[in-house]
């Protein structure tokens, strides 16, 4: 909690809609507007509108911006084509995850790094420090940008009503500049819901106009952080602070594929991550589906059938789509049982270990 949470450019809109506002990573953000379950369902079946302006946008520009990112992050970014995006991470020298990121290449020498709200300062400072030897500028433009996401199977059809841009040509994890509702936007086909959808980066001053244009469309439901969390959980996507922390390695999280040990040159964390890659991780991120109605929650202990502690829940909630509680948990890699239990406030509730994700769009 921060003493004086910041407001996004859409704060008054949220207030006007009667949103339940909470301090999240130093911002007053809508937790839900009405029913989080209806918001969740809207994204799975129609379209939901999210204010993500708390996220950070950090720009790198200059002839060596790509090389600086290759050095600062675990991914191999510089070969990426203009207009593409990649999911990657920034790690500490010991291999711990400082943040997970989406990096967009906007132009030959211009890159945008999107960081989680709680980590913007950490990421910016690390990028400034790590880019020092490179011909590049690091610019934190988080306050100048608003980020609005339109997610759901109807997202493209709805957005097409506001832009002449060729949306079908914009592939998943790609970005281009476009006018949307007359507003200059960076339009990306990315998201955190497990559905098709778009993220629109616009000037903070244009946020209200863009939001209101999209919100007026029949069937577009404003969605808060609560539904965002259950949507990403069903999609098996990690949340920084839960599945990913400075104490976790990308390998434990099942995200070793984003660590490009083979890329040319050294990068921060390489030695530690290379060593981790040599040995199987001691614990593994797994999916759990509860048999009963009680939801495993973050921090609850996972135990084997004979009651031996074997792990800890990182995220858990009743899944609106599956109709039963689901969770992600770190479980000791030696555990082979597929029927475990979670200690729910002193009672052992049976759970089944399942493959992630819980939900995949058809």
């Amino acid at each position, binding site marked *: 909690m921060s003493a004086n949470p910041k407001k996004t450019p859409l704060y008054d809109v949220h207030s006007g809609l009667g949103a339940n506002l909470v301090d999240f990573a130093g911002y007053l953000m809508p937790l839900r507007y009405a029913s989080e379950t209806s918001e969740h369902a809207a994204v799975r079946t129609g379209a939901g509108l999210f204010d993500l302006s708390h996220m950070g946008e950090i720009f790198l520009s200059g002839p060596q911006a790509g090389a600086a990112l290759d050095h600062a992050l675990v991914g191999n970014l510089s070969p990426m084509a203009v207009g593409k995006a990649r999911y990657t991470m920034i790690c500490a020298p010991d291999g711990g995850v400082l943040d997970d990121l989406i990096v967009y290449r906007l132009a030959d020498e211009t890159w945008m790094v999107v960081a989680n709200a709680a980590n913007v300062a950490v990421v910016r400072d690390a990028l400034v420090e790590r880019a020092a030897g490179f011909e590049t500028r690091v610019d934190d433009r988080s306050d100048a940008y608003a980020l609005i996401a339109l997610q759901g199977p109807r997202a493209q059809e709805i957005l097409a009503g506001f832009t002449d841009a060729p949306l079908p040509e914009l592939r998943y994890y790609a970005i281009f500049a476009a006018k949307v509702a007359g507003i200059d936007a960076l339009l990306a086909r990315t998201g955190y819901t497990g559905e098709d959808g778009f993220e629109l980066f616009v000037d903070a001053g244009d946020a209200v106009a863009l939001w209101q244009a999209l919100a007026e469309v029949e069937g577009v439901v404003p969605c808060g952080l609560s539904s965002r969390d259950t949507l990403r959980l069903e999609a098996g996507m990690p949340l920084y602070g839960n599945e990913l922390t400075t104490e976790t390695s990308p390998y434990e999280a099942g995200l070793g594929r984003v660590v490009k040990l083979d890329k040319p040159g050294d990068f921060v964390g390489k030695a530690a991550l290379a060593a981790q890659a040599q040995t199987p991780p001691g614990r593994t991120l797994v999916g759990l589906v509860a048999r009963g*109605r009680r*939801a495993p929650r973050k921090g609850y202990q996972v135990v084997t059938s004979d009651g031996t502690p074997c792990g800890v829940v990182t995220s858990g909630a009743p899944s609106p789509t599956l109709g039963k509680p689901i969770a992600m948990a770190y479980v000791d890699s030696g555990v082979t049982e597929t029927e475990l239990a979670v200690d729910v*406030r002193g009672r052992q509730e049976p759970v089944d270990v399942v493959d992630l994700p819980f939900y995949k769009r058809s």
Partner: protein
Amino acid sequence: MSVPEQLRYSEEHEWVSGLESEGGIVTVGITQHAADALGEIVYLELSSGEGDTVEAGEACGEVESTKSVSDLYSPVSGEITAINSAVIDEPKVINDDPYGEGWIFKVRVSDEPGDLLDAAAYTKLIEES
């Protein structure tokens, strides 16, 4: 935020109705403020059944919402005479109608109810929280 005038309230956000009724059977639920703060309620469990006694201020069940789990406290002491099976089956009713269809249990009060708040005092409590 609705805080009906005729009800009495606990600091743990339960409401009580019927304190003046003959026979001393009161109805208990959770307030709209509590229901809104919890989010959509997906599971409700009472640790006591009909005929069991509950003590004022002691936990007597759990309320689980999409976001969290909270204890349910009895605002009065006495014997449980009825449990609303409709909210056990479909706890969301509590969100939709916390003071009506969303009642949770009834108690035959055995002791003078203690420090319950009137509507004005409860309104003050939630405004200050």
